[in-house]
Every structure is written in structure tokens, then in C-alpha cells.
């Protein structure tokens, strides 16, 4: 047997990289003739830069980052192909027990409803303003991330301007829990398993799973340099096939314990298996449960979708991270090209994937009219 084709993939230790871990550790990648080396990284910026200079052939990447890198919004302009949705959803908004108690005091309705909690947060902020207290601080993982957009969307629906009324800070996912415990942040939006970890340690209360803010949100994409992907479509398709098989394995209930143990290894996510098991089951604890909590990209929802790319672009526009032009929109849509997926899956799916829907606000049709419906935003 020939030695597999060597490829190197960078990842951030998060549960939503499970398909990559399983593809390697359960031999699905090898069966596709791939000899994959997974490299654990400490920052999204490193992953982006190492992908750019060819240290990595592929990466577990924040879906909005694939778009931002392609447009050169973060000072590194790198055309990226997001060839497969590794995961959708999977984040949650968690707040400190103190803030949760305050929200409960002022809330008018069920806090599990994001409209209610956002208005309660607005009331808490107004009260702090009156007392000249420091603004509340929320952590998120990167400026170009669904975490950032989920926090902002949620808050803005309650009448909060996230650029004026609170502080948003970037923190590495693994530092979130510690920062919440030490009072450096009052809440955060982060991926799995860190919300469950915060709840287990009693330092945070999970307020909403990300899918309660918008659903289904493309979370992590399998990203390659666009040029590299175009030159070697066979390799890309083999990688997607390996991930599809891995996703089926991850999702099979009888494998949950094994997958949780595999994720728990120190060279993967490196936390207690119990929090990971609950994550895989969609049980976040404290009654927060959703079958959509963390979706692993499969034949149905792993297909990159141009509309989802446009939707993410709209969030960037809303918060002043990008400028609109029809040309840019075309570039953005092409980042999530379904070409490789369709070839790998062997069928061209006729139906479009489910459109992204938020808990409030207008439906997404045309970008400009969509954006005009929001009162709060920093469009430039």
C-alpha cells in the first residue's frame, strides 16, 4: 500500500473540530489515501497566517474568517475556499451568576426567551449607567466570528448598542471560564465545551444556546487556500469524504462515549469527557437543551451555501467591518463554494440548505433592504 498523501491541518481545541479528529483517529482519512497531521494551535490569527504561508494545507477556521481573509479585512488578504461546513451552531451565551441574578430581578417574562433577556440586559445597563458603574464586559473569540455577531444581534434586539453601551473583548476560548470566574468579564459567547465547563464549575449560568439567537449558523469551515484547492480538487474531495464519514460516526448515539473520550485527550480538546459528552448530546446543563445545539456538517448541512456566506457578510456590514459593493458580494458568495462538496458527496443536492433565521428581526432576502431594517448598527 502506498503511503498516504501528507497534509497538515491546523485546529483550535474545540468540540466542533470533532469530525477532523475522528477522521484521523478512526482511520477515515487514511482510507481516503490521506496521511493527515493535525496541529493544535493557540490562536485563530496563527491558523490564518500559517495557512497563508503554506505551513498548513487546510484549517479548522471560523466561517466568517474565511470571508474576512478573502476580502483582506484583517490585513492579511488570502483568497480562501470554505469547502465544507465542519460544524454549525455550537456556541452559547453564558453570564456570571451575579449578572444572571440581576437579569432575573428585572426581567419581564421568561429569561430563556432572547427578546426578554436582551431587554432585561438593557435595563441592567441603564441602571449601571445611572450609578456611573463601569460598563459590562463580554468576551468573544474573534472579531470575525459568529460569537461576536450572536452577542451583538441579541443585544441590539434589546435596544443595546454593543459599540457604545458595553465592552466587547476578544479572549481565547480556553481563557473564558477563568476570566468569568475572576470577574474580568461579566459574560461571554464561546463554543463548546467551555459553556458547559463554566456551568460545571459554578462560575457561569448558560443563558442561551447560540442556535436560540440564529440558526443554523455556519460555525467552522474546512478552509484551504483557494488556489491550492483549485489545483488539487481530488485531494479536497477526499478530505471532505473523510470528514463526512467521520461526522456520521460522531453523530451515531452508540459512539458518543468513544468520541467524548477521544475529544478529551490532551492533544485534542483536553477537558473532562463529561462536559464533552453532554455537548455531543445537546444537553448544556441547567435545563438548556437543544437538538440543534451543535450540528456536525453532514450530507444534509455540510454543504457550503452562498446564501449563508452572504448572510455572514451582512453581519460584517452591519457592524462596520466591511463596505458593501456588488463585486464584493460576489467574491464573498464564492468563498462558500459547493463545488468540491457536490463532487465528494456524489450527488448535487437540488434543495438549498435551510436559510438562517434569527429569533427576531427581519428575514434575510436582499442585503441592503435587510440592513435598513435595523435601528442599531455601525454600517459604514
Amino acid at each position, binding site marked *: 500500500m502506498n503511503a498516504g498523501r501528507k497534509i497538515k491541518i491546523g485546529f483550535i481545541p474545540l468540540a466542533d473540530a470533532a469530525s477532523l479528529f475522528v477522521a484521523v483517529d478512526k482511520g477515515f482519512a487514511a482510507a481516503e489515501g490521506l496521511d493527515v497531521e493535525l496541529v493544535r494551535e*493557540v*490562536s485563530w490569527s496563527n491558523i490564518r497566517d500559517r495557512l497563508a504561508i503554506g505551513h498548513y494545507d487546510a484549517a479548522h477556521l471560523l466561517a466568517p474568517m474565511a470571508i474576512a481573509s478573502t476580502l483582506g479585512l484583517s490585513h492579511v488578504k488570502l483568497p480562501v475556499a470554505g469547502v465544507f461546513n465542519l460544524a454549525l451552531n455550537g456556541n452559547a451565551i453564558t453570564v456570571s451568576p451575579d449578572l444572571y441574578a440581576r437579569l432575573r430581578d428585572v426581567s419581564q417574562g421568561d429569561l430563556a426567551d432572547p427578546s426578554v433577556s436582551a431587554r432585561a440586559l438593557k435595563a441592567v445597563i441603564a441602571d449601571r449607567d445611572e450609578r456611573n458603574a463601569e460598563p459590562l464586559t463580554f468576551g468573544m473569540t474573534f472579531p470575525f466570528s459568529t460569537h461576536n455577531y450572536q452577542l451583538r444581534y441579541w443585544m441590539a434586539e434589546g435596544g443595546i448598542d454593543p459599540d457604545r453601551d458595553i465592552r466587547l473583548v*476578544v*479572549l*481565547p476560548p480556553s481563557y473564558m471560564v477563568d476570566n468569568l470566574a475572576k470577574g474580568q468579564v461579566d459574560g461571554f459567547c464561546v463554543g463548546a465545551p467551555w459553556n458547559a465547563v463554566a456551568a460545571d464549575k459554578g462560575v457561569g449560568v448558560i443563558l442561551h444556546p447560540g442556535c436560540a439567537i440564529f440558526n443554523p449558523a455556519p460555525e467552522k469551515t474546512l478552509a484551504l487556500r483557494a488556489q491550492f484547492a483549485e489545483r488539487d480538487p481530488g485531494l479536497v474531495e477526499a478530505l471532505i469524504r473523510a470528514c463526512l464519514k467521520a461526522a456520521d460516526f460522531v453523530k451515531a448515539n452508540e459512539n458518543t462515549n468513544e468520541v467524548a473520550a477521544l475529544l478529551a485527550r490532551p492533544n485534542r480538546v483536553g477537558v473532562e469527557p463529561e462536559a464533552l459528552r453532554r455537548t455531543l448530546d445537546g444537553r448544556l446543563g441547567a435545563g438548556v437543551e437543544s437538538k440543534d445545539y451543535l450540528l456536525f456538517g453532514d450530507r444534509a448541512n455540510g454543504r457550503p451555501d452562498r446564501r449563508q456566506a452572504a448572510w455572514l457578510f451582512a453581519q460584517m456590514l452591519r457592524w462596520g467591518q466591511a463596505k458593501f459593493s456588488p463585486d464584493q458580494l460576489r467574491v464573498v458568495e464564492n468563498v462558500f463554494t459547493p463545488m468540491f462538496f457536490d463532487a465528494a458527496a456524489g450527488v448535487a443536492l437540488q434543495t438549498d440548505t435551510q436559510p438562517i433565521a434569527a429569533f427576531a428581526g427581519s428575514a434575510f432576502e436582499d442585503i441592503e433592504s435587510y440592513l435598513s431594517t435595523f435601528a442599531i448598527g455601525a454600517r459604514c
Partner: protein
Amino acid sequence: MKIVIVDESPIRAAILEEGLREAGFCDVEHIAETRNLLKRVYAIDPEIILIDLENPSRDELEQMFQVSRAVRRPVAMFVDQSDSASIQASVDAGVSAYIVDGLKKERIKSILDLCVSRFNAFAKLQTELDRAKSDLEERKTIDRAKGILMKAKKLSEDEAYKLMRGVAMRESKKIAEIAQSIITASELLK
């Protein structure tokens, strides 16, 4: 020119700082503890920020690119597309630089080159230190095994060493490995 070094390794930061001072950059500050990183960076208000790539706080610095009311000056990363050799060298060495817009490229290039060579020097030092440590460990192991052989087989020190060396050569292993086996075996037989 004000320069900030964000590095959790105090030794590496000191090596870099020394290099920068020698090159005439005297206004250098080191941030070792990354809590409230952005706040501290804004307070120092540097023209150049150097950060090691093992530092998870690097993503925090990326926030400075964002158009936001909190940010006073836009900061750009030096490693732009036109200079892929520099990007490669700095990422290989494990360092990244962020600079304030408008600084002359030649000046920054010399600083980045200095960073790369100091980071590489530190890595070399680290490797040598690791090797020295493991050499010392090996010598200790061999000495212990020698003692065991001398006692058990009534050998001189020289004879005990030669015996181990002979076995190591025959089995094409390192003397330290043979010595470790002797120690393990003698502990089992205690």
C-alpha cells in the same frame, strides 16, 4: 520609537529587549502577564508590538484592527503580501509584529529581522539547555548502574563501564538505555 514585547517567556523577552537596545531602540516595554492586554497596550501606546506566536492572546491584538470607538489609532500588521520572505521567516521563528500605520517600512524591516534572529537564538539556546539537561540525566543513570554492577559482580568502576558499553554495542543501543535496564532490573529483584 516605543516598542512593546508581549511574551510569557521572561528570558526570551530579555534577549529580544537587549537586542533592541543595542540597535538603539531604548523605549522598550515587556508585557508578560496578558490580563487586560489591550488596555495595557493602549496605555503604553506603542508604535510597534511584538508578540510570540505561542501566545493565545494574539487574537486579542487582532481586535485593534477593528473600526471601533475604543481604538485611537489603526494598527496594521507588517507582514503584508509583498514580503512573503519576511512572513515566512517570522512565522518560522515564532514571532509576529503589529505596527502603527505610517511607519517607514525599512525601519520596521530591520526590527523584524532582529526579532527573528533573537527568537532563533533563543530557540537554539533552549535546545542546547535541553540537551545539557538530558546529558546530565544520562550521566547520573550510568553512574547508578555502574554502582549496581560493581556491587553485584564485584567489578571495578572501569570494568563495570566496559561491560555496559560492550552490551550497548552488541545490541546497538545507547549506554544510558542499558544502564536504565540495569536499574529497572535491580529494582525488580530487590
